[in-house]
């Protein structure tokens, strides 16, 4: 057990995870943030993606203790007023998802990518999301959602 302090979705959180506990399990079990999903636990599918200090990270491949002192954003932290953030809204408008299990990972990966590449086009977005697996949609609706969010952001 190690005592850690970190910021999660803007709030200071403390915990005492076992050294071997992944960040994903810590978020889900210790902090009850079950929006972060585990799809493979070996870093391939991207469902567990969260943002740590501004970068998209697979929380199944990171230990909770490694996140000590970091700023972590999960899917629960994107909407500020209990509604939807701009990317989430664009994905709703685009019918982006079906079963929803891969959704948090795609949303977090795209959030991190768009903040660095607000002018990205379709091919760049496809490449940026190529490390996330969705089994339901064939991806087109997800790409469309990200494109719509980027377009709205530019018009703003």
């Amino acid at each position, binding site marked *: 057990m190690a005592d850690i302090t970190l910021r999660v979705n803007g709030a200071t959180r403390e915990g005492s995870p076992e050294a071997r506990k992944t960040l994903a399990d810590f978020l889900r*079990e210790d902090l009850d943030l079950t929006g972060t999903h585990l799809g*493979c636990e070996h870093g391939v599918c991207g469902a567990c993606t969260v943002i740590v200090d501004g970068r998209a990270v697979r929380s199944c491949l990171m230990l909770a203790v490694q996140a000590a002192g970091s700023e972590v954003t999960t899917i629960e932290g994107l909407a500020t007023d209990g509604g939807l953030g701009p990317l989430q809204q664009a994905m709703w408008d685009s019918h982006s998802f079906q*079963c*929803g*299990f891969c959704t948090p990972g795609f949303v977090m990966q795209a959030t991190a990518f768009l903040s660095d590449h607000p002018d990205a086009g379709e091919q760049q977005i496809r490449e940026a999301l190529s490390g996330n697996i969705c089994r339901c949609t064939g991806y087109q609706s997800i790409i469309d959602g990200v494109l719509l969010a980027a377009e709205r952001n530019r018009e703003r």
Partner: protein
Amino acid sequence: MAEIVAERYTGASIKRSEDPRILTGAGRYVDDIKLPGMLHAAFVRSPLAHGRVLSVDVSAAQALPGVVAVLTGADLEAMTVPGPDPLMALFGAAGPTPEFTLLATDKVRLMGDPVAVVIAESRYLAEDGCELVEVDYDDLPPVVNAAFALDPSSPPLFANLGDNIARPHSRNEFGDVAGTFAHADRVIDFHLDVHRHQNVPMEGRGCVASWDAGLAAMTVYAATQSVHVTRNGVATRLGIEPDQVRVLAGDIGGSFGLKIGASREELAVAAASRHLGRPVKWVEDRGENLMVSGQAREESFDVRAAVSNDGDLLGLDVQVIIDTGAYPGMGMGAMVPDIIQAMLPGPYKLAALGFESTAVITNKATYVAYRGPWASETFVRERVLDLIAKDLGLDPVEIRLRNIAARTDPPASMITGRPLVGVTTIEALERVAQLVDFPAFRRRQAQARAQGRYLGIGVATFIEAAPGPRGPDGGLGSESMRLQLTEEGIVVLFTGQMPHGQSHQTTLAQIAADEFGVPFEQVRVVVGDSDVVPFGLTGGSRSATMTGGVALHGARDLKAKVLDFAAYLMEARAQDLLITDGNVWVRGDPASAIAVSEIGRRAASGQFGTDVDAALEVQATFDGGQGGWSGGTHCAIVEVDAETGLVKVERYVAVEDCGALINPAVVEGQIRGGVAQGIGAVLLERSAYGEDGSFQSATFMDYLMPTTCDIPRIEIEHLETVPLDADVNFRGVGEGGMIVAPPTVVNAIEDALSPFGVRIYEQHLPPARILELIAAADSGQ
């Protein structure tokens, strides 16, 4: 004259009511359940494909702090009732029934077979405990393929069967098979293989079981396509009554046919919870999911085709051997041949069919339903047509148009029986040919070839019984729904459908809102509670017609009942009342409007005598009406890199007819998702086994699935359908993409490789295999 009420929701791409929760992390999947005192399960699994269990020593595991119990196969045998799988009992599967225990006792029959379960305070500790369980095995020769399974000397997996045959050989004939073949201009024969691949939902299987000793009641939080089938399975194997079991399901992270009934692991977890008196959670990891949850589609076909010199496909004679893996009673492998047989003619004028089938048992994962489980009928037929076309120098569109049955009145029937009523395959094929412009493509293809680039085009057609036409003998089953108007004015639909991505909470609300006359937001669709919803199962592309239909008729019935009650309140005649936009009003008198919430509140007040029916609730059933076929034609344009073997899908066009669209965005999502799985099946995915039966694709680095860069934009057009029913012309669309995409892509690849003379008789074409095919053709093999 009936009043025409504009449909505001049905037919529009209404945004999904599921999305706000899933987009904010507020979905509730089974792994999100946390109960007080909950324990965690992990399974000890066999490292061998086939072996005898000599001993299981759990003492070290049991001594580990945090481990609460270690239960072996023998322990669980003592806690549960033996018997057939309840899912198979439901579908009435025929054939011999293998006898086995929930967890292995005497034998292990595949790599990953569960031998013991460790229950601990955390999943981490449960897995630690698994490491400490000592199991001694004696190797048995693995039965790794159908050829060995058919060999009488192969060791039977199940002692009570005596051999490895899940379904004995049978032959059926439709039409004059011998005569057709005797008089055909030419008979061609070949062997086709469909490889083993699998569902792989992003969320694996899992459950939380919680036994209440005081009430003698079990609550199971499940990820399932049917809460009732799961309930019945748990009750049967635990030896309790179904009404002692409540199954609850929330959001489900995909399934594609995998999560039906109650798996051996889920039953073991339920038994463990009852034994310990505490809630127990098990959520499989990806390795377990890939290795043991279930796999599909391992079939091989010997095909003979009787053909005229003009390109008429006169007859087929097909022998299929299906590899159902281990524990066939837990899957559907032995049922698949009947559906393949029935569907093999497709929309074509095929006049004679001989069909032989055998299902075998092997030391591999159980064959389960996977999106269009019978899809190989379309693969075989659409491959046969292309191979014949090549032999005769015909165009792939031309040979299909020549052979597809015209839509006549009365309709032609498939030689296997069902009428081809309302089938629009010809229109779909013609439209596809227009959209892709075959002559222009052939010119581009020729130019590319001159530059050493290999482009190819492929088409394939399918029909799907979703739900199928109402035939002379053909009942379509029935679907039930309970509907009520609450005192808040909400129209509540209780359905046995268990959506896992299909958007039923949106689509059923669209239909009911239009039919009843309330805003979309005023309809709530309740799913996932076996104590509350009627029996149902989401599968087989049935819900659009069956559940869409019962929502429509149920909302109509509820409306009639509400209007009868409103007529009493408003001192009007029911036939003079309307409901629009959530208000009841007297025709011609808008000032008379009363909100349906007010009607609901008055009904709930209990102020009425027995002469007034104030129970604003109905129970509806729907028999499928006239039913109908779904279907379509798909076309792929691919480029094959002859140096690397990589295939790029450059363009993909789907022209589909799934009847009247409830929500076009939802329909198109189903089509694209199915096509993506079909492209993955051909180019990437394979459930791989070694010669010793070891499973070799247990991670996402070995079992490859398509990503954003592998799937092109998929162009979709919907055909205007032939209406068959007065009210309900929605048809299912969940499986078609996965059924028809594999032959579409394979046909395109063969076309691309035609300069090499390559002919393709298999479905899995990763780069290495493409290079082998080119090399073999080059060397004249």
